């Protein structure tokens, strides 16, 4: 859950250019393997949380409107769960 939050946060606040973040950039930020992040990114694109685009032969990822709403809910309830000493 935290990885998803980190990926969405990176694609919202820390994208290197307008087209979005590349997979290599996200691997560095989320600190996980290529195989694992690929599955997560495919899932997030399928759920409509991320938008995928092809820019100069490489896949780039940008947060969607639904993704922004999810991230807002995630941050709110992460603080809520943290209040009970838990992580979501």
């Amino acid at each position, binding site marked *: 859950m935290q990885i998803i939050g980190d990926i969405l946060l990176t694609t919202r606040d820390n994208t290197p250019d307008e087209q979005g973040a590349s997979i290599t950039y996200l691997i560095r930020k989320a600190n996980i393997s290529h195989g694992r992040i690929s599955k997560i990114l495919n899932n997030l694109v399928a759920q409509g949380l991320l938008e995928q685009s092809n820019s100069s032969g490489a896949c780039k990822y940008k947060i969607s409107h639904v993704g922004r709403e999810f991230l807002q809910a995630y941050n709110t309830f992460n603080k*809520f769960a943290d209040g009970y000493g838990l992580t979501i």
Partner: protein
Amino acid sequence: MEIFLENILNLVGFIVGMVIGIISYIGFRNTGSPTLFRLTLAFFSIGAGFFIMWFGQTLDIVVYQTGHVERWVQTLGIAVQTVGYFFIAFSHTIKSFFPKSNYLRSVGMVPLFLISFISIENIIRSISFILLAYGAIETLMSYFASRRKTAILVACGLWALAFGEFLGWYYFVFPQSILNVVSISMKISGLIMLFVPVTKVPLTKIKFDENI
């Protein structure tokens, strides 16, 4: 006097449990987090347990007027609450609460058929105490990691509930003492402290699920 105070406690417990349960459920529907699902189960169970006891007492005050609640109603209410306390403790990753062997599981059920409701209530209260104390310790440890002030309030709330359970359990030894009143007051203050993180949730910013 005591039955009225207990009635207020049960009503407060029911409301607090349900409100936290609903917020957790909204969180679960919006994020799909298993932790929030466990919190939902925990607080709905706690709310339901308090509701059973409140309903039993209100029925006695208004209809039967015997001055005491049926023992089985009390036991059922406490048992349902204990399920909630279990989920709170489970959220703090209790890995193996139940014995894995089928034989031990079946033997573990035997005392439930051999002893009276008072004994069962004592057993359930002691289990509640252990679960609450565990939850309080884990929450306190989380506070040391995150330094979030609400975590320490929740830890204090769980301690107050645990101490309330302990005093309620001890009340069987000294039935005519003020222990029950102190126990009820401790539990009410514990529930209020558990409610604090809910007040920090900016409800206006939450996108409510359309099915709720």
